[in-house]
């Protein structure tokens, strides 16, 4: 049976129940929950009169600058003299770019003749509808290629498969990326380095999962960054403690281990004594929250010894901070910390909130530099661990049972690892490895270990594979099976493999039964595994992943800034996104939320009173300047440089991230801000910028880029509100945006952006869709995106509606059989007449 491809454009794919009910070749019933179809505008046939009118409009308002002779902007030219309005899909990329600009009224530039609002609406309305219609029947709903797991997905898959959380980032190379994300199928290349890493990782992971009584002792040492202040209780450590760190370590066997803490010494270790050693402190080690070791440090005796010889005291303290403890196999949280000294005021001057400056600790408290775990020694065995429980679903009681049990174990692992039902043929290779090991005298466990390694290097584990059914012709599209859909869902929402529940539903073919898919999405978003979506998506869309590398405030200007604040920034933004997503709140609240998430430290940083403790909590904001992402320290610091704010970076960020109108790149060989002219030095960044807004070549872009940045000038480079700049100059945050709206601060800027909710919802959906599909967005996807936004607009633009809209959309639900050459134009042409066939 065949479905018209056009009917599916943007619409929800038919449910399996509908499929089951429609064995005859009747046309598809209109899916009940699918509102996400392009609006059916009155027939705007491409009649010549209409097109001519629009051509005249373009000529009047655009072609003056975007013409063949001199297509501006020079560095990323647009030619609207030749772009066809008769055949819109031919130049669809250009027209989509035009639409993005027009939708936020960013063109024509201020100072050039502008159409009336009605004329704007008329043209954009016509262009939108015509583009949507133009793609009907031509779009390729489901272009997918085999999709390699990226580093994050690999780690999560191992965690969910084997109850084993391992950091593979040192072993597997950076995945690279495209379109702003690192999960793009066509950018996930392979290399000898990667393959070598996969095989090594499989060997090590399988060893950790099964445990190994014969493993040789090793040491794992963890460094604690100097910039992390340790003058308060740290997350994951018991109440009544101060500083230190928790590490989750996988212990390979039941045995004795040496647990070690080592202190920062001072003056970059040239000084071998210990700062803050004059007062007594109690060092403790905990395992899974229980104290297992305690040692007294410092005080008059140690201090006197240190005064005598700094070198001699060092090994004495180190020995006292080393414990030998019996630990069982498997993952344990090992904490290294100090007992709090309540009520005792520091007797040293504390100039800043952070506990150390470049070389000295200013808190007068000892601070841990590394923690280490060494072992195993005196191995007694390998007791039950979460991983072993997950793997060993049977234990052979006799030799005769071994083969059957091994088979059962591997079928069970392979089913989860390959995300689909498996047969004996799927585990032939792992079984062969098991047999070889047994034949060469290895234990049952060791046999399972190597077989498990084999599963972990299977292409079915490392790649997401979807197969076209035999007989489907090139260009034809089909709805993916429930099992395939389950993987698409779990990799989108969890960056990991489906869980048992999702797999069971999918294997039974019930995933698309009415209400089931939406219920699953709700369940999956409520599950902590969806933190992967929150952190991977915001990490890349909002660039939070750059907080570590790009944010390096000058230590003298911002003495309080430390890793605790940096970490707090990220937590705040992630929690806001997660809250809006899970509480089904409007995506507009990303910008307008009158609440945020802070702990005591971050609240103090922002000047919010009444927040205590290290735990992040939701607080109501009273200052409207602080509302939403524009008031988040994360974004404000990411768009600053070491010693000052950068209105240019901030402006570019706002235009790109929230308005979808990225400015063209700077021209080569154009200098950035001149800061050399010391006598005539401008007082503010604004004055500096005004200077190079004067030359025409700079001004054409900077008069658009800078104003959103100026509007945020009252936030300093670490996101604190300031009345004046650091050198005492008055701040002028007034400016005119590209659409002519006057803004004079964060509130006005936010209001201006939110005045066009569709534009903001669109850019968010485009980015989410890129992430969800693992591919770049093509102009042919835009009708779908518009349909999703349109539907969500009827539902208060809930973020969850955008996510559900993407999941229900044809690109997420369908798969197109590609042409041999993999050439998109070929497929587009083939699909123009194609129908969608059932598998």
């Amino acid at each position, binding site marked *: 049976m065949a479905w018209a491809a056009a009917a599916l454009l943007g619409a929800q794919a038919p449910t399996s129940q509908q499929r089951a009910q429609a064995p005859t070749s009747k046309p598809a019933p209109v899916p009940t929950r699918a509102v996400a179809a392009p609006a059916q505008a009155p027939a705007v046939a491409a009649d010549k009169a209409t097109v001519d009118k629009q051509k005249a409009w373009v000529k009047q308002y655009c072609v003056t600058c975007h013409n063949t002779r001199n297509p501006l902007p020079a560095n990323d030219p647009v030619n609207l003299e030749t772009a066809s309005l008769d055949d819109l899909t031919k130049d669809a990329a250009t027209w989509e770019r035009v639409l993005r600009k027009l939708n936020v009224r960013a063109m024509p530039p201020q100072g050039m003749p502008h159409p009336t609002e009605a004329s704007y609406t008329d043209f954009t309305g016509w262009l939108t509808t015509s583009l949507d219609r133009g793609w009907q029947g031509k779009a390729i709903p489901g272009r997918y290629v085999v999709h390699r797991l990226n580093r994050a997905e690999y780690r999560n898959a191992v965690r969910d498969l084997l109850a084993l959380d391992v950091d593979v980032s040192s072993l597997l190379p950076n995945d*690279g990326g495209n379109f702003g994300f690192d999960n793009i199928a066509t950018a996930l290349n392979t290399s000898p380095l990667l393959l070598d890493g996969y095989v090594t990782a499989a060997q090590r992971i399988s060893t950790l999962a099964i445990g190994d009584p014969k493993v040789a002792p090793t040491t794992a040492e963890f460094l604690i960054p100097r910039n992390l202040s340790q003058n308060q209780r740290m997350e994951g450590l018991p109440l009544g403690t101060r500083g230190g760190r928790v590490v989750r370590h996988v212990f390979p066997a039941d045995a004795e281990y040496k647990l070690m803490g080592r202190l920062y010494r001072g003056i970059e270790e040239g000084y071998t004594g210990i700062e803050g050693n004059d007062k007594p402190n109690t060092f403790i080690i905990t395992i899974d929250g229980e104290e297992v070791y305690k040692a007294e440090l410092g005080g008059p005796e140690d201090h006197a010894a240190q005064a005598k010889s700094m070198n001699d005291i060092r090994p004495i303290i180190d020995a006292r901070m080393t414990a030998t403890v019996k630990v069982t196999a498997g993952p344990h949280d090992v904490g290294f910390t100090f007992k709090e000294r309540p009520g005792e005021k520091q007797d040293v001057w504390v100039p800043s909130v952070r506990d150390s400056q470049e070389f000295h600790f200013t808190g007068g408290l000892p601070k841990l530099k590394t923690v280490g775990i060494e072992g195993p020694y005196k191995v007694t065995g390998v007791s039950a661990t979460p991983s072993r429980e997950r793997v060993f679903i049977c234990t052979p009681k006799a030799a005769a049972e071994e083969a059957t049990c091994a088979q059962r174990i591997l079928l069970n692992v392979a089913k989860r690892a390959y995300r689909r039902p498996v047969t004996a043929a799927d585990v032939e290779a792992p079984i062969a490895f098991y047999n070889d090991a047994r034949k060469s005298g290895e234990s049952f466990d060791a046999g399972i270990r190597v077989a498990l390694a084999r599963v972990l290097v299977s292409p079915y584990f490392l790649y997401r594979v979807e197969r076209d059914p035999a007989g489907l012709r090139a260009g034809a599209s089909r709805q993916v099976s429930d099992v395939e859909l389950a993987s698409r869902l779990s990799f989108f929402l969890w960056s990991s493999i489906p869980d048992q529940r999702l797999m069971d539903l999918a294997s039974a073919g019930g995933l698309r039964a009415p209400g089931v898919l939406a219920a699953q999405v709700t369940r999956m978003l409520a599950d902590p595994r969806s933190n992967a979506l929150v952190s991977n998506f915001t990490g890349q869309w909002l660039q939070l992943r750059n907080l570590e590398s790009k944010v390096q405030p000058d230590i003298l200007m911002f003495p309080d800034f430390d890793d605790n604040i940096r970490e707090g920034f990220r937590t705040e933004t992630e929690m806001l996104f997660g809250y809006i997503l899970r509480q089904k709140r409007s995506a507009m609240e990303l910008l307008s939320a009158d609440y945020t998430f802070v702990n005591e430290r971050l609240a103090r940083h922002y000047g919010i009173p009444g927040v205590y403790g290290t735990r992040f909590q939701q607080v109501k904001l009273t200052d409207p300047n602080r509302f939403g992402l524009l008031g988040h320290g994360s974004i404000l610091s990411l768009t600053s440089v070491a010693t000052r704010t950068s209105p240019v970076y901030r402006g570019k960020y706002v235009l790109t991230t929230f308005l979808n109108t990225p400015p063209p790149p700077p021209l080569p060989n154009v200098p950035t801000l001149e800061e050399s002219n010391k006598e005539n030095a401008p007082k503010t960044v604004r004055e500096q910028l005004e200077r190079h807004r004067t030359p025409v070549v700079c001004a054409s872009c900077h008069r658009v880029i800078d104003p959103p940045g100026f509007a945020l000038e009252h936030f300093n480079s670490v996101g604190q509100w300031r009345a004046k700049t650091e050198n005492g100059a008055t701040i002028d945050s007034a400016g005119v945006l590209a659409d002519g709206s006057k803004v004079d601060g964060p509130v006005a800027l936010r209001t201006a952006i939110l005045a066009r909710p569709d534009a903001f919802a669109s850019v968010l959906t485009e980015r989410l869709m890129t992430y969800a599909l693992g591919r770049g967005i093509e102009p042919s996807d835009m009708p779908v995106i518009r349909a999703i936004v349109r539907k969500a607009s009827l539902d208060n633009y809930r973020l969850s509606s955008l996510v559900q809209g993407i999941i229900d959309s044809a690109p997420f639900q369908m798969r197109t059989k590609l042409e041999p050459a993999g050439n998109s134009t070929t497929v587009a042409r083939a699909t123009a007449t194609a129908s969608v066939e059932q598998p």
Partner: protein
Amino acid sequence: MIITKKHLSRRTFLQSSFGAAVALPFLDAMVPALTAQSQTAAASPFRFGVIYMPCGVYPETWHPTQDGANFEFKPVMQPVEPFRDQLVTISKLKAPWGESVHVGASSAFLNGVGPDVSRAGTGDAFNQLRSKKTLDQYIADKVAGDTPMRSIEVGTEDMGTAAGACDGFPCTMFETLAWREDTRPLPVSINPRVTFERMFGENGSQQFRLARLKEKQSLLDSMTAETAKLRGSLGAPDKAILDEYLSNIRQVEGQLERMETRMNTLTGNPEAPIGLPEAFDDHMTVTYDMMHLALQGDISRVFTFMIGHEPTDRSYAHIGVPETHHSISHHGNDPEKLAKYAKIGTYQMVKFGEFLEKVKNTKDGDGNLLDHSLFYWGSGMSNGNLHDRSNPPTLLVGGAHGRMKGNRHIVAHEEPTANLLLALGHIAGVEVEKFGASTGRLDL
């Protein structure tokens, strides 16, 4: 007992460890064995190394004013003056990279073309990433022979992939210097321990290492069979991806096979470096040391070392430059910043000099290792303040088997860098007539 150092991510307070990599002492015993092996080789092979530094060098602190022989060393280049006799510096080259500001600087460095893609959104979302095969890989084709590793790619920075971090270009373009083929980027390894284990196998006793190596070989062999079977059931675009995957499996297989042969000649256990060094200076040193070891032991004859990616956020606090390299390169002609910019360049020359010194002190065949090597050190731009693509710092050091005469400053008169790449290729015996945007061969 060797310690595996790990950086605790600032991200989470609950951090997991990757179990524990075993390590036992062994390197000292290996160096003589490796050296003996390379010395007995009938003819010393040609070695080629590339070192890339991002964000350029201010031309006035670098390029000599006098051309030809016996030119004067400007301050930044000063630390490598001891190698003058085997050193050629080139000025007035022109790096041909299109509209991009930073990405072209590194991505064009070894192919003279740059990213063969435009910014995201304007390209075809479905096609594979594409650049051009790079010079080092042409040279590897020619000289790798039976070395265990055809080429080694190393770096010190794991760059983020956030949109905006890559100027709208695919982030892959920023992260790699070497392309095996037009569609096959070779990512850098930033972890010295990983590089070391690729060179010498897993740490542990000889018996353990061999057992792990054998197991790896069986796993790879079995992967090939399964992947080939899967490949047969897929459509053409998927086949192309799996072909690349299979070809990489075969490369690793070949690498392990050649390594196994070597391993049998080694006695003792090499001592692996710790994981990610805490200090950048240590990271630089250990990376250079391993490249030295790779050449010395004939484990590889070609390497590329990407000191940082464009535009790097590396802080050089350890030499008194707490600002990031990128922000200092936008010096705005401020004398203080220019001094710091020069300091970074000079520091890198010191590290390069230390490496050259070790290479020179290594006996190789009838001479020393430097006599038989050619190192290309450079950046993709000159004055970072302007992202200036003309006059980039370009330094060639090594005897190159007598194929390059040292003690010269060549003025290239705006010839494209591709002309230099062509000339380097010819020195290494690569038979191509044109390279990237080359308009001829630079007269070296």
